[in-house]
């Protein structure tokens, strides 16, 4: 079982890396693509990446762990991110975060047991005019609509773009 799974991660990762081989400094782009494919950065994929790009695994891990938006553990199918930029802070994002924690029964940074949702914060998405906002998957949602969107997503209605 385990080795079969490895084989498929290996092959998938290799196919993702094809366009990046030989491109100068394309390593961060490659990580983005791998994460896009798996939803996070599986250790095995990083091993393949190190091998294919001829980099030490320590360097690969050093870069992957440096950036906030690379994840080493699986995340939820739906990502709810409370914006904590300055405008959202001034307009009460801490209360929004507390409300989300209680509505979703998750702490900031946690993923639900069924992997349906991850709750996290984000440093400003540039939607300060509508502050406070929450980003649900790729969509910026004004405060008043957040609970409705989450309810729809819980019902399995993929309302996002």
């Amino acid at each position, binding site marked *: 079982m385990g080795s079969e799974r490895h084989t498929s991660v290996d092959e998938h990762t290799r196919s993702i890396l094809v366009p990046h081989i030989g491109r100068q400094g394309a390593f961060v782009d490659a990580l983005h693509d791998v994460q896009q494919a798996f939803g996070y950065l599986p250790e095995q994929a990083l091993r393949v990446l190190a091998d294919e790009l001829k980099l030490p695994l320590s360097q690969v891990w050093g*870069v992957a762990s440096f950036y906030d*938006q690379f994840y080493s553990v699986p995340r939820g199918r739906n990502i709810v991110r409370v914006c904590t930029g300055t*405008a959202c802070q001034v307009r009460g994002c801490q209360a929004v975060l507390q409300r989300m924690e209680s509505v979703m029964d998750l702490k900031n940074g946690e993923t639900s047991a069924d992997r349906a949702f991850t709750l996290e914060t984000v440093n400003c998405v540039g939607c300060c005019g*509508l502050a406070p906002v929450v980003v649900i998957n790729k969509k*910026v949602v004004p405060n008043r609509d957040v609970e409705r969107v989450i309810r729809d997503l819980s019902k399995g209605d993929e309302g996002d773009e």
Partner: protein
Amino acid sequence: MNIEQLTVLRTAAREKLLVRDGEKSKDGYEYHVLVCGGTGCVSSGCKSVRDTLIDEIKNRGLEEKVRVIVTGCLGPCNMGPIVTIYPDGTFYQRVKADDAVYIVREHLEQGRHIEGLMYRSPETGKLQDRWQDIDYFRNQKRLVLRNCGFIDPLSLEEYIARDGYAALAAVLEADSPEKVIDEITISGLRGRGGAGFPTGLKWGFVRKAPGTPKYVVCNGDEGDPGAFMDRSVLEGDPHSVLEGMVIGAYAVGASQGYAYIRAEYPLAIKNFTYAIELARANGLLGKNILGMGFDFDVEVRVGAGAFVCGEETALLESIMGRRGEPRPRPPFPAQEGLFGKPTTINNVETWANVPLIIHRGGEYYASIGTEKSKGTKVFALAGKVNNTGLVEVPLGTTLRQVIYDIGGGVPNGKALKAVQTGGPSGGAIPAKFVDVPISYESLAELGSIMGSGGMIVLDEDSCMVDLARFFMDFVQEESCGKCTPCRIGTRRMSEILTKMTQGRGTPEDLELLIELANVVKNSALCGLGQTAPNPVLSTTSNYRDEYDTHVKEQKCPTGVCPMRVAPSRVRK
């Protein structure tokens, strides 16, 4: 295409935009309906407004009379979704899908304007039906934002109609690289990312630096929380940034460029990438640009959520696929930048200014602004202010004009307390300085910085200790950890501020906080660390009494801070 073909295309493209200039069209369209498609309006539901408009226009058989165009960000995000109808420029705000049906039947079919969707001046109560008449726009000078909210950002033709790529054509045809650098120097343009370094001087260094190939880089890692100028320009007018980069590359002698855009801006990445493809397919990028023998290409690199990557040396590291850690300067990127080669790195707004300066002349640009701060600056106005959104004004405009004349003042009759400029690297400017003209120099004198243009309005309910805590939490989280003063200093300051906001601070803590702030400012490696103490320094000097109340009386005058938290809940 070559220069001649560009000119022909421009003439044809202009005819298609006549309606938007308030003139009669030659192609049969009586109305252009512009739907703002910036990130703000997308989140308030502009897509269903657009779809309903298109459906209803079809239902009523008006397709030959009415064109619907989705634009980039127009600016006033709190009024979205926004629909503007030309030739008049009628401005409808907070439009819902149901209203869209009404707009088609009333305005487009009957020619009757809909009062209920119009903007009403909060002061006089009078309707302001055209966008040009609304105080928010009337008091701005939109040069960088000239096309934002006015053209379809995915249309090369519309950009060309608005004199797009005319500056590039003129430069390739008649100017030496040195002449281009001279023109930028004459304009007085200074880096819009925050530091305000003279752009012409920077380009001159790269031009003269030995080593090939040379690179140009666009810094689109707009990390300051509360700033979204670059997002809007990349979304709404991507070609202006691209044209600026091509002109810059010609001036410094570069053949490859990179645009580093933060991952939090998916629409900006999409629109800019599309602009690159269009430009390349039309001979405006790539080999032999406009048939004039100049080669240059641009690649987009997407950030991955690290604030420090806005610092130029960290950004270059990230483009090279490494940890985004800054390094000491010198050598400056102009000598040793990307892949060890001479590199000019400028912010999105700086690049967007370049075609404008070349097209209208350095002298024209230098006629706007103050003695040392030329041109206009785009600010992202947010926080406790009635009209939030993008605002472009000539430098030298006062904070009062921005917050009151354009921003419509502080909501709910509250008093203005301070304005935070420059994000976590800046400071809070007390309300008493609201009549100071905005320039790089004046903001520095007030203990803040111009920064990239974030402008957060704080009212009497805001606690300055809590504000400092907020920024310090942010910075200590984002500190890359390479140098000790920043890694440990910002952490200690954040802990002290947290203590204060929980009612456990002492007067000795306050002394230590100020001492630490000065140490970190003087000893950190890069701009992030050196400017990180600014919010602390500016609030402790201007609002000392508020700190004193926190540490001597264990009280928060505004009631924002959760004083007296049980010891078990205190953050470790």
